[in-house]
């Protein structure tokens, strides 16, 4: 499992690194978000369209980066807790059965 997972993670990282390298070679690359590009497409399809509702609250970019980090940290924290818990549970079970033999 370990070797296979390390291999899969290596492929995932390689894909992202290759994406940055290939993407940077294109002209005018700024790694903009596709959500924003979709809005630009809307503007070309229907130049008269005006958004009829605005954001209730827009965090400043500095705060937004912190909140994005918070989202990732919460997710990674809970996920990591679960994975560590299960691994520890298994080890505890094994060492108990070793002691019982």
């Amino acid at each position, binding site marked *: *499992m370990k070797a296979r*997972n390390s291999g*899969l*993670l290596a*492929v*995932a990282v390689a*894909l*992202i690194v*290759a*994406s*940055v390298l*290939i*993407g*940077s070679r*294109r002209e*005018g690359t*700024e*790694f*903009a*978000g*596709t*959500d924003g*590009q*979709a*809005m630009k*497409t*809307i503007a070309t*399809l*229907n130049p008269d*369209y005006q*958004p*009829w*509702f*605005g*954001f*209730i*609250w*827009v*965090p400043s970019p500095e705060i*937004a980066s912190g*909140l*994005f*980090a918070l*989202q*990732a940290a*919460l*997710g*990674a*924290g*809970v*996920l990591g*807790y*679960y*994975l560590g818990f*299960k*691994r520890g549970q298994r080890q505890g*079970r*094994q060492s108990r*059965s070793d002691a*019982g033999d």
Partner: protein
Amino acid sequence: MHITEGFLPPLHAVAWTAASLPFVFFSVYRVNRLMREKPEIKLLLAASGAFAFVISALKLPSVTGSCSHATGTGLGAILFGPSVMALLGTIVLAFQTLLLAHGGVTTLGANVFSMAIAGPWVAYAVLRSAKGLKAPLAAGVFLAAMLGDLATYLVTAGQLALAFPDPASGIVGSFLKFAGVFAPTQLPLAVVEGLLTVVIVNFLREYSGDELQNLRFLPKPLVSEARP
């Protein structure tokens, strides 16, 4: 895949919200029942939601020179069934809408429909088909997560196409334009999501066999093993 606040005409916004609401209500019911009947899987449910949380927070670069994010909803969909993910995905999208100005309140219904309903259902259907065809589990999981991710973005393209048909080529032409914005960027990211989901499932098969059997993700052993 977030449609930005105010960028769906009112009628579309209301219609997608109405389409998503029953799924979210049913999801609340399913999650409640699951936690009551199988309290031992609560932690795994939290972990699956957490996976979607972290994966959808990461905006990854793509070969096209633009950025997008994966959805992370495939994992929970294949473990717990797609209906459970409607609630978890809505929580993720609500967090991003209210705190990050990412997505929108008026477009929440449409975004929930693509990321928390369509994507998980596609992932689930792909895994079921792969199991039916006796494909290796890892291959089924990979394809399920990857195609669920892509389906989310194609549904978003469809939603935008319905709202903003191309003056010359109509809804179909508009769909191709929006899909052209999303698909090339999303394809490598969908592959990454597929790989990460397989990594987690590999871990679960090693350490959480009892929970996976409980959820019927893995078949139950014929003879019940004596616990040491």
